[in-house]
């Protein structure tokens, strides 16, 4: 047997990189560390048996089964369980004779095939042939072959990144992740002006001697809004009872910004020119 093996390996290059196993240790998968063809062949010619893993040749028992079906032109729509079982077992036998390790799931498939074959040999119980024991294996085979064929078809589609490529240009916008941006004081005034226009319904600007001081207004605002909370400038000023009250609130806001109690931000996506006041912690 080893003689046959040598002939094969000399005639054919080593089977699959990283798959050929020396007794007791596997070759590393890194191709740089794989012994050269020469080393391998020397090894093959000179030394004790080495093993090839069946998993490198057939992905699994289904893969082997379908390989055999195709190779032997077996009609899967009217499968001969005897034939497929026989061929499968012979193939396993042959693989083993070539020192190719056959994994457990391949043997399990063999057992399954044998058991199905046994069922077909039992006298049929006169039920409809939906109970055909062959379907146990024929159905999965048909399903797998259908999908295998589909996977080949799919590969023929013009794949993105292979035969067609998405055309793209660099994104011209730098700052996208930050939804709100800082605004300058001028924008703040603009916003205030707008609010005041809306407040014009509240009557003329009256200077009230009795009104709260800016410091008192700051304290009032701080009593309502805690650290890290926020409020829109519009909302804050819209609550004003009079124009002068709005002015005092606005001046309080400016003072708080100056003192670092507040920062103001503007959301450019918002569509309004509203200014967001953020209370610092």
């Amino acid at each position, binding site marked *: 047997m080893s003689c046959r093996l040598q002939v*094969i390996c000399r005639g*054919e*290059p080593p*089977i*699959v990189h990283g798959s050929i196993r020396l007794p007791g240790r596997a070759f590393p998968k890194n191709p740089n560390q794989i012994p050269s063809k020469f080393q391998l062949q020397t090894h093959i010619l000179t030394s004790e048996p080495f093993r090839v893993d069946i998993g490198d*040749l*057939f*992905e*699994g*028992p*289904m*893969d*082997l089964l379908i*390989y*055999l079906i*195709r*190779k*032997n*032109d077996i009609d*899967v*729509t009217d499968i001969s369980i*005897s*034939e497929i079982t*026989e*061929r499968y077992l*012979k*193939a396993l036998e*042959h*693989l083993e004779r*070539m020192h*190719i390790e056959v994994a457990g*799931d391949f043997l399990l*498939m063999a057992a399954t095939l044998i058991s199905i074959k046994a069922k077909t040999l039992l006298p049929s119980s006169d039920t409809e042939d939906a109970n055909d024991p062959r379907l146990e294996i024929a159905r*999965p085979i*048909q399903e*797998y*072959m*259908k*999908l*295998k*064929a*589909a*996977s*080949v*078809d*799919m*590969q023929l*589609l*013009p*794949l*993105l990144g*292979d*035969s*067609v*490529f*998405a*055309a*793209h*240009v660099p*994104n011209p916008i730098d700052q996208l992740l930050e939804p709100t941006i800082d605004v300058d004081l001028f924008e703040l005034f603009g916003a205030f002006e707008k609010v005041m226009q809306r407040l014009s319904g509240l009557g003329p600007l009256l200077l009230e001697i009795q009104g709260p001081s800016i410091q008192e207004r700051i304290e009032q605002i701080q009593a309502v809004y805690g650290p890290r909370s926020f409020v829109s400038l519009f909302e804050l000023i819209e609550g004003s009872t009079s124009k002068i009250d709005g002015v005092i609130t606005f001046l309080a806001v400016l003072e708080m910004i100056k003192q670092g109690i507040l920062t103001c931000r503007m959301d450019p996506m918002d569509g309004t020119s509203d200014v967001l006041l953020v209370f610092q912690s």
Partner: protein
Amino acid sequence: MNPPLKPILECILLVSDTAVEFDRLVLLFPDTDPTEIRQALEALKTEYDERQAGICLVQVAGGYQIRTRAEYADWIQRFLKPRPQRLSAAAMETLAIVAYRQPIVRSEIEFIRGVDCGAVLRQLLERKLIRIAGRKPIAGRPLIYATGKRFLEVFGLNDIRDLPRLKEIETAAASNPETELERIRSMVTEQADDGKYLT
């Protein structure tokens, strides 16, 4: 005061990373009749075709995308040095199973393929060709796999129903005997063809 639709659409499709759904375009132009947007897209498409551009406008994954024409693939591949990795046959098979049999759990995929598919599924997930679509309410609550938008994009499909139809099994073998693996496979399964089988 209508915005110049065609150039804006061109910009947007070229800036976007993925195909852009028509609905998103409609939302972007609230004051424009959707028919006009559709017409502008058609006009852009025709323009690309007529001026024999390197690019074309396609409808894919339920949206619009500008792509290079397939005939220039060789030049682009030559330009983009590290060629994108193709999917292995095993990955392709698994992907086909998910695509045609979705929603599907791992054990069902493994039943069809007859092998462990964990690594392949992970690879497909990483490439966003499949996605996790929930958990099946059965013992063990296994993850359900399905394809998503990225899959449609990569395969140039507008809808999952545009997948090539599953063919009834052909008798012809599809394996390519030219490859090394095929030769070895044939060799290791060599057997006396005159074997007699029970029928």
